[in-house]
């Protein structure tokens, strides 16, 4: 049994729920990649930072873009540079090794100590991307044909993968991972999160602000629901502006920090004035 005193327990600026902590610890113990999903602003990326900080390990971040290929994470063979050097003949180009640059995954494998590897927003890449990494994450090793060399992980890195679920991840990939969906924090949890950021916030202000915040989130059909980061911005604005808690319950100051697009604001204003339909006709 794992000693509950050890392992990941959250960190100073990050509040993890108990199940999440347990799952992080199990994932570390079994050496399996941990896939984190959840609404934007629920702290998926921050989790990796927090693990690295709490366990005092180096964090390697691999940000995924729509153009990222799986091979980029392993190594890049800079053929263009080599070709260029060959043309000017001012360098010895026989050693291929100098043109092989390890990617983030390669760096994590080669590291002398265990690191935390964050593969951020994996769903941004092409649909096939996760499948191309199956073997590498399973065996924690890959082959460089140009050098005929095997890169094997000296210490299995702690792999955290985040997804905004813009695309679905392939089943074969998910089978090898541990999955956790971070729910949007409830009011109680949110209160703790806000307090971590603003320890000296007034109780009444916080409670009123949270009440309004969750009420706005309930409004149906918003294009983008406000999330944690928007709430923090809003509360900061309220505190700086010296708004009294009573004012929050009657109107919503600084609405722009919560709702970021015109339609949402329009819709919200309309809804709070009167309940209106979508314009469907009332005839049958």
């Amino acid at each position, binding site marked *: *049994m*794992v000693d*509950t005193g050890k392992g990941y327990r959250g960190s100073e600026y990050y509040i993890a729920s*108990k*199940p999440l902590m*347990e*799952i992080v*610890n*199990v*994932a570390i*113990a*079994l050496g*399996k990649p941990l*896939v984190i*999903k959840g609404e934007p602003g629920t702290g998926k990326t921050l989790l990796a930072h927090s693990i690295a900080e709490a366990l005092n390990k180096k964090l390697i971040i691999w940000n995924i873009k729509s153009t990222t290929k799986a091979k980029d994470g392993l190594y890049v063979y800079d*053929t*263009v540079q080599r*070709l260029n050097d*060959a*043309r000017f003949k001012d360098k010895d180009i026989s050693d291929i090794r100098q043109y092989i640059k390890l990617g983030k995954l390669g760096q994590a494998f080669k590291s002398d100590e265990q690191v935390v590897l964050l593969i951020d927003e994996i769903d941004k890449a092409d649909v096939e991307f996760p499948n191309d990494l199956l073997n590498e994450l399973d065996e924690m090793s890959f082959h460089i044909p140009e050098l005929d060399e095997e890169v094997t992980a000296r210490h299995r890195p702690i792999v955290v993968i985040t997804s905004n*679920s*813009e*695309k*679905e*991840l392939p*089943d074969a990939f*998910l*089978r*090898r*991972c*541990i*999955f*956790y*969906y971070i*729910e949007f924090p409830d009011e109680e949890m949110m209160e703790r999160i806000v307090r971590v950021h603003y320890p000296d916030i007034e*109780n009444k202000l916080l*409670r009123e602000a949270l009440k309004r915040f969750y009420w706005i989130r309930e409004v*149906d*059909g*918003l*294009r983008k629901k406000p999330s944690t980061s928007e709430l923090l911005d809003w509360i900061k604005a309220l505190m700086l502006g010296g708004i009294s808690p009573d004012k929050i319950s009657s109107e919503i100051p600084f609405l722009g920090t919560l709702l970021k697009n015109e*339609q949402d604001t329009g819709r919200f204003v309309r809804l709070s004035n009167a309940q209106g*339909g*979508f*314009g*469907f*006709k*009332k*005839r*049958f």
Partner: protein
Amino acid sequence: MFTDFFFVLKKKGVPVTITEWLSFMEALYKGYFQSSLNHLYYIGRAFLVKSEAYYDMYDLAFQEYFGSIETSSLELDKVMEWLENPLHRLPKLTPEELAEFQKQLEEFRKQHDMEELMRQFRERLKEQKERHDGGSKWIGTGGTSPFGAYGYHPGGIRVGGESWMQSAAKVAGERRFRNYRNDIILDVRQTKMALKRLRELKREGAQEELDIDETIDKTAKEGGEIELVFNRSRENTVRIILLMDTGGSMLPYTELCERLFSAATQMEHFKEFKYYFFHNCIYQDVYEDMANYKRVPTEKLFSNFHKGYKVILVGDARMAYSELFDVNGCIDYFYTNDKPGIEWLMRIRQHFPHSVWLNPTHRNFWGHYTVDTISKIFPMFELTIDGLKDAIKALTSRTRQPVLN
């Protein structure tokens, strides 16, 4: 160990595989987590369920298999100990006394903020280190403190039995993930995700992307003289026409349609997106606005848009027999149509082979003669996430469904 649970999960529709089950067993045998139902719930979920869409089914399976086992939450274990074996049971109350209590409770609610009470409770929970019986402040039994069990404080917080902190069976019982299920209606974000699948990548436009492989190949062939090769970048070429029913029978599905509509209008990756409205059935005109004032002849759809456009019709397909089959059958009496609606629908289908009908009503209610007829013209899908996914699959498939005449 718990092999039956595997089958219960399968039965509930969680797509769990043997690989996942084995790694879950490995974690169990190696003793990586404490043997309590709470841990089992969360860690089992992390190992066996790989999408929040199946969390609800997992909850149901977990409840069915483990539901009868009593659990208490981790945090509450200690509190529960304090509350065991009360000093004395609450005496039986007469109806008058009960009414008196009720009155006190109302008064208490007026005076005290419930949130304030919860906050105090949490604070006290932090401070309190031991068991208390009697008394008026600490969490305990038989006292008049607002917190505890078997006590006398009207409107206080009862601790015990069901916990308000999280215990596994409770969480499973709450079914908080019901809204993430794939087979229920969708929200804007989910709709957008589904619509993203609607893409056809083709190389179009200016040649501005450097093709490195080709460049190297060409350069090598030229004997080292660098030759740059450019390519057109790939982009989505999907063109969409959305036709929406705004008839009265669609009223209950307003919100649902609005979500689909706002998701579709937000999608930036379509090459072109057009939308029109109609009332119950399509005749010689469709409308640009929802109030059906700005007419656009349906013929224009055929002349302006080629057959590569994908057409999505949204409607309940439920109308009077005459509206679909009769000349001048349109529900608006001031509107005359010399061709019955069904002819127009069939022309749309013939002109746009990639077309589907999304129906916001449940499949069980499709047994209506007009719904039946229309579903023979257009492939019809439910307006749920799964339905939308299937519809998009049908829209993007290369084989064209036969048109029924």
